[in-house]
């Protein structure tokens, strides 16, 4: 690439340097370009064709696949489901995680055990988690009988079968799996804030809530933004758990963008259309990423990125 700058200033070391760079960097770069970057570019290319993945790529249709996507009610539902999960995560899951992080942010007996338990679901596979909860949520199974048992029978729903409620159910299970992760991030952030600052505010007569709101929360800003960003990126590519638990049903009520893409591209071999959905998904990700870049100092990124699990 840039091996064309033969400045002999450093004498003999220059060729050695470039040999080292090439030998060390090329394998990783090749793997990354071949399996990550090229497919993304190809998705953009395929999205302009009507294609079943087998014949040669000849049936150029321009932006028709995109038009189809944006006029498809199925896809609109999928997009709004992704957005719903984002909104619910920001409104409920992250505040919940933050509350627990605050609760655990001081020494007391049992603290380590609670942390261990809350974070445990993060290491379980989404698919396997989905299988277990599907069983628990069957009509009359553990969840229903427990609610009935404690006199909350009125809350019982057709958890996965009610088109109006299925996304709420999925959101609860997503939160079950991921709140511990956000809690851990936020705990780490809280530990980076010197106690003295908040104590000084309290001494100066600030109320407990005021001190939290005006001192702790702003100082926690960078970590919170990381948490928010990861939560949104996770929400727009939601797939595993939904596929296992509902397959996007009932009648498309729990479709997400990734589910719609998978169904179109893989299940019904409309690879052109599926690729268009992938590009739209990409566009959502890009908007989030750019917004994040703008809003956030560069030092956040290394943290943001540390939790991404592909």
């Amino acid at each position, binding site marked *: 690439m*840039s091996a064309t700058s033969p400045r002999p200033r450093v004498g003999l070391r220059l060729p050695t340097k470039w040999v*080292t760079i090439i030998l*060390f*960097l090329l394998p*990783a*770069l090749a*793997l*990354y370009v071949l*399996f*990550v970057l090229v*497919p993304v570019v*190809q998705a953009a290319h*395929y999205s302009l064709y009507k294609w079943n993945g087998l014949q040669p790529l000849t049936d150029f249709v321009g932006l028709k696949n995109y038009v189809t996507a944006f006029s498809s009610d199925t896809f609109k539902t999928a997009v709004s489901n992704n957005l719903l999960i984002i909104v619910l995560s920001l409104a409920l899951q992250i505040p919940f995680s933050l509350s627990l992080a605050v*609760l655990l942010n001081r020494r*007391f007996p049992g603290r380590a055990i*609670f942390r261990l338990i*809350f974070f*445990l679901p993060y*290491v*379980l*596979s989404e*698919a*396997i988690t989905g*299988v*277990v*909860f599907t*069983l*628990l949520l069957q009509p*009359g*199974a*553990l969840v229903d*009988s*427990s609610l009935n048992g404690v006199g909350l029978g009125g809350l019982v729903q057709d958890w996965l079968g009610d088109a109006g409620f299925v996304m709420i159910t999925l959101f609860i299970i997503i939160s*079950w799996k991921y709140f*511990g*992760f956000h809690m851990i991030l936020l705990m*780490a*952030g809280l*530990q980076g804030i010197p106690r003295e600052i908040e*104590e000084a505010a309290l*001494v100066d*007569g600030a109320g407990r809530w005021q001190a939290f709101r005006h001192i702790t929360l702003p100082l926690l800003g960078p970590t919170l933004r990381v948490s928010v960003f990861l939560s949104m*990126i996770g929400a727009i590519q939601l*797939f*595993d758990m939904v*596929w296992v638990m509902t397959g996007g049903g009932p009648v498309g009520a729990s479709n997400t963008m990734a589910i719609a*893409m998978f169904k179109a591209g*893989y299940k019904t071999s409309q690879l052109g259309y599926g690729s268009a959905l*992938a590009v739209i998904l*990409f566009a959502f990700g890009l908007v*989030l990423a750019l917004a994040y870049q703008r809003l956030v100092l560069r030092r*956040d*990124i*290394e*943290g943001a*990125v*540390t939790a*991404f*699990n*592909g």
Partner: protein
Amino acid sequence: MGMTTSARGNLSASSTGRQTVGLARPSLSGGVRYAILIFVASVILVPIGYAILGGFKTNGQLVGDPVSVIPSPWVLSNYTDVMFGANGAVFWREAANSLIIAVVAVTATVGLGSLAAFVFARIVFRGREAMYMLFTFGLLFPSAVAILPLYILVRQIGLEGNLLGVALPEAAFALPLTIIILRPFFRSIPLELEDAAKIDGCSAFGFFWRVLLPLARPAIATVSVLAIVGTWNAFMLPLILLNGADQWTLPLGVMNFSTQYVSDQARILAFTVVAIVPAVLFYAVAERQIVSGLTAGSVKG
């Protein structure tokens, strides 16, 4: 600290009234805190416990009385069946597939990623930051985007239905994270060490291998652990790229098992439990690395 009494008065008025440790941060009383924490912990543990105990029940017990906790009588046959009996071959094959993919993917991503991170951390060259941004870019968009073309690509290069066809893309997707975590660690190792190694006749690779890697062991452990969790739990990629039951990994296997034995809940639970045992054991051993890896960067903010 030495504050007037009026300030103290304010403080106690606005706090919960418990002021045992003077300036201690006002907080929920211990009892309320424990009540909340125990409630949340039980919401986490009950489904897992239900699965474990449910595997020891008969379907009759599960359906007839879903709430009673302790199996009576205890039934071992679900677990023995899924591990050693009728479904044993399936379970061990899927576990082996998961293991092979994880080992190949983690080796590739940690091996290649640390070489690349070494270049990004310690060699100054034109275009370095641009190249580094190219890798970080990979983290900022959803991986699902690449999946359909990957399906075509893997078919084209003859890796369809091959475990390698899943392991290599998984390694590629894990590379950005690996490089981003390793670079600052590699950077923090003093230049003097590098100079000394060079004077002693160490090549660049010699320095990397004999000095840098041993010193960066905690960071290497962190990225390995994160890559293991990621590949072990991967679902969408194997779902698309593997085409036969012979190659399925555990998450695919569990999903399939649950549809195949849809009326045999106890057996599904037993299979699910044995399938998550490796992840839970791994968590018990590596919790510290997982947590430190995930929080590595965000704490600095």
